[in-house]
């Protein structure tokens, strides 16, 4: 089994995207390879200008909860999702976009962060990554 982590990002929630990117960057930092497969609500976050726009999965309270969490995060000097996404790519992480989600939701390549995405693909590519990974997660 290769030293690799593969994460499916199905949720577009703000907090879950934090979990996914922290784990993915942690894997790269610990010397592993890492791939992230963005599908469904997760793929929405890879649209231009949408990365930080997700709701909280709990206690969103029409944005008030998120506002409070973001304030606490700023105080604790937590890095932005944007910084983590660029770090992920800089450290050799692979970003994959689900092409069926693109079709269903009418998302064109030019709507997405093309500069960061390395592959537009389907379940076969995900399985190919996952079968050689010692860590696989669905978030």
């Amino acid at each position, binding site marked *: 089994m290769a030293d690799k982590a593969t994460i499916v990002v199905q949720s577009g929630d703000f907090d879950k995207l934090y979990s996914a990117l922290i784990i993915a960057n*942690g894997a790269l*930092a*610990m*010397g592993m390879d890492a791939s992230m497969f963005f599908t469904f609500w997760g793929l929405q976050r890879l649209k231009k200008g949408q990365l930080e726009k997700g709701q909280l999965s709990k206690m969103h309270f029409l944005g008030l909860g998120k506002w409070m969490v973001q304030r606490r995060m700023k105080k604790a000097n937590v*890095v932005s999702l944007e910084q*983590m996404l660029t770090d992920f790519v800089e450290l050799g992480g692979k970003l994959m976009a689900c092409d069926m989600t693109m079709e269903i939701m009418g998302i064109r390549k030019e709507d997405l962060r093309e500069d960061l995405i390395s592959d537009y693909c389907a379940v076969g590519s995900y399985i190919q990554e996952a079968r050689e990974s010692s860590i696989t997660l669905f978030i």
Partner: protein
Amino acid sequence: MAEIKVDCVGQNCPVPLVETRKALRKAAAGDIVEVTGTHPSSKKEIPMAARAMGLEVLDVAQEGDRWRIRIKR
């Protein structure tokens, strides 16, 4: 042989770990990467990561709330 300094004072998870990895990637074999920071878990986890990559941890020191880790690439 160069000595590369990485300042992660005040940074939170996962920045110290990620910045260490970035520096190690840029370093040449034999270079020394010195990371300073305050995030408690990173003091444990940066040496963990270095050893997992087969690198030598030269020193881990603590002064007040600051730690300093030296790794040989």
